[in-house]
């Protein structure tokens, strides 16, 4: 499968997965394209489309928590930010993702 075909496959697959969680793709289309491109590259390298903004721990139980879409593993944290860590997905009611702030899990759950 070509890179662009795989990217479109992931795009469709993720759409269904995040919709039921109350999330959608960010309206920032440039960010969407960048993140999906990086995930295809990460999948080619590691066999799994990991989050492009979280580092591998090389411990399976930890790394499985950053497989995109990783929302279920970080639900309270991401719900507080109204976005996932990399910003690929935002809450369905978000129209301006630039207003959303990245914050650590500890900060979000204080």
């Amino acid at each position: 499968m070509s890179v662009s075909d795989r990217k479109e496959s992931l795009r469709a697959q993720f759409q269904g997965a995040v919709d039921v969680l109350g999330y959608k793709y960010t309206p920032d289309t440039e960010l969407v394209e960048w993140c999906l491109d990086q995930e295809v590259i990460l999948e080619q390298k590691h066999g799994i489309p990991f989050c492009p903004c979280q580092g591998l721990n090389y411990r399976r139980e930890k790394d499985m928590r950053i497989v995109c879409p990783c929302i279920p593993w970080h639900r309270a944290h991401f719900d507080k930010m109204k976005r996932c860590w990399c910003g690929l997905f935002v809450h369905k009611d978000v129209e301006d993702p630039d207003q959303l702030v990245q914050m650590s899990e500890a900060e979000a759950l204080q």
Partner: protein
Amino acid sequence: MVKIMIYALSTCPWCKKAKRYFVDKNIPFDFMDYDLATEEDQNRVRRDFEKRNLDLSFPKAFIGDKIISGYRPDDYEKALQEAGVP
């Protein structure tokens, strides 16, 4: 001048923005792209982060004794001001 270190990933758009913030302000900083680092350096970073109870989400900016997770220009500004960077 306060020491500034940015931990980043080459695949992360927010990491690029974080680096760009300091470049645009002409503030010198060091950085490491964790995913491009040697295994030894990655191990060292993980051990250091674990000791500090930090996860491996990027970017992370170390500005003096302040650690800022995520792309947070307002917090960078505040930390720089507190460190006396004009």
